[in-house]
């Protein structure tokens, strides 16, 4: 095959990918960037300005909601890691053969239903007239109906549940490749459980931990249904505000500005996380 043909086939192979990136990712984002600098007056006039970005910083509820969303997402990510690590350890190191496949499947099956269905499932369990509340009453542990829905704890439960799979998979992959001898050597050199975990296992699993954390963090930050449905009256979530601006208030300009800010600020947080954990994106995603 000569070089001309090779180049042609390369371009042909790249075309669907390029079309996808340009038409469905780049163009809409550039469009959004453009809209975010427009100042709305009437359908036949057009003015440019930074008004929408100023709003974010001067109207305290925008940035307060953003901070709240960011902090809760970080906490959710951390909690997901704590829960997913033992699960991943068991699947990767202890389970063998068929049990391993079954366990993996058990993590996967909930994701065959959509996020909406999973969220409604949790709502049925947690609501005042729901299953948990009636069990507590039947067992005599509660006098009246207990409301467990519509608070931050409920939101975090829902978010952790939604993120679990995306943490387990990269962890299993990295832990799977770890040599058993490394752990044994750690014990031979006089380490206890904690030091072996800290000095051997965690450094080895770091790329998996970081990539899992990035995925879960971004998913949580960008989730919409779970916080809105399970959070109730205090469910202020940044994506909810973007949705409201676009759909309920037809204020595309403000919505676009908030969207751009979400993109920039969340990228910044991920970059900061990579720097702090001493990882590079190439190592983590490679």
């Amino acid at each position, binding site marked *: 095959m000569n070089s001309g043909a090779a180049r042609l086939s390369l371009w042909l192979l790249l075309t669907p990918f390029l079309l996808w990136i340009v038409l469905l990712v780049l163009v809409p984002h550039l469009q959004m960037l453009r809209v975010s600098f427009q100042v709305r007056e*009437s*359908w036949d006039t057009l003015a440019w300005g930074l008004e929408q970005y100023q709003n974010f910083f001067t*109207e305290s509820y925008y940035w307060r909601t953003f901070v709240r969303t960011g902090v809760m997402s970080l906490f959710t990510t951390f909690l997901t890691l704590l829960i997913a690590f033992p699960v991943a350890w068991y699947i990767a190191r202890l389970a063998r053969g068929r049990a391993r496949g079954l366990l993996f499947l058990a993590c996967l099956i909930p994701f065959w239903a959509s996020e909406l269905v999973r969220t409604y499932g949790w709502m049925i369990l947690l609501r005042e007239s729901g299953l948990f509340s009636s069990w507590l009453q039947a067992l005599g542990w509660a006098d009246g109906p207990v409301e467990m829905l519509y608070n931050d704890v409920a939101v975090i439960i829902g978010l952790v549940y939604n993120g679990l799979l995306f943490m387990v998979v990269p962890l299993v992959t990295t832990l799977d490749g770890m040599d058993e001898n490394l752990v044994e050597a750690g014990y031979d050199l006089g380490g206890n459980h904690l030091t072996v975990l800290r000095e051997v296992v965690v450094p080895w699993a770091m790329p998996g931990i970081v990539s899992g954390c990035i995925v879960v963090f971004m998913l949580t930050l960008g989730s919409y249904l779970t916080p809105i449905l399970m959070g109730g009256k205090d469910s202020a979530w940044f994506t909810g505000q973007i949705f*409201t601006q676009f*759909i*309920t208030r*037809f204020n595309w300009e403000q919505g676009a500005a908030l969207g751009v800010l979400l993109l920039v600020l969340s990228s910044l947080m991920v970059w900061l996380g990579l720097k702090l954990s001493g990882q590079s994106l190439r190592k983590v995603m490679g």
Partner: protein
Amino acid sequence: MGSRTARTSALLGSTFLAAVTFSGSLLAEELRLITWGGYAPDDVVAQFEEETGIDVKVTLSNNEDMISKLRATGGAGFDLAQPSQDRIIGVQRQFNIYKPIDFSRINTDQLQPSMVKATQDSTELDGKYYGVPSVWGTSGLIVHSSVADTVTDYTDLCDPAVAGKVSYRLKRPTLIGFAFAMGMDPFAAYNDRDEYESILAKVEGKLIDCKSNVKTYWTGGDQLLALLRTGEVTAAMAWDAGGWKLNAENPEIRFVAPDSGALGWIDTFAIPRRSENEDAAYKWINFVMQPEIAARITNASGNFTASKGADEFVRAELRDAYRASFSDQAINNIKWYPPVPPGLETLEGQVLDRVQAAN
């Protein structure tokens, strides 16, 4: 999630129809209707398709969603829309998404003249009219009889006696309702921005104080009905039709017109600027406003229509429920929404955001 299944089945139906049309004749017409749940019942659509040979493709929506969709395309994608009459002129001035109605093509004999007049007045721009009245109803209070004595006005939702058992939407009707209940007249201040802002500021304070009383802000009709059915919520600000539906299931739950007046809305027919089948749109309007057909829409949605003489075909229970909720005095006290001037909704949006974010 009734709307979701309805939309899916509408989608499946239209896909099927498209396939049939494609193999059969290429001339079959299509009417793309964007409307509210219950305004285009399946049997009405089927009869229209049979009589006219026009395929109807129904998309379920609400005011904000309709405006957003039409704004995104500059008024294309749909042949007929059903926004509320107060949400037409401001939007038209800002986004130019509708075209004027040609009243010579509307069979106005079968419509109630007073409503046609009212809708024309509130949808007039540069001497042209943009709306035909179709369905009307009110927002008020749905209360359980155990708290019916406590909750007689919007602000009573903040009474400690119903703490944690209350729900309302975080949308503009709530702001308006609370303003009336607090003794102010927001409609009179529509064109006085400063005055309106001061009203909003007071309502904002009230709603933030009231937040601890609220169980959750409801966002969809099904969600609210579930909250009331289970008794988790005993008092809510909501639409009359929802209250009558619950009343049919459980007589303890009733819709009441608040002391300061129920808020009346009229949903219209409006033609998107780039409608591709205006003929079909006018045919649909004249078809569904026939008394018998309009009554079937009332039976399906629970809301009454602008069709003259439709009342006698409406289910007796619905008429009774309506009379139980509205005395003559309550009807005269209904506050009808005037057209919303542009820019007002941005102010309201900021207030609602602050209430949502407050602790």
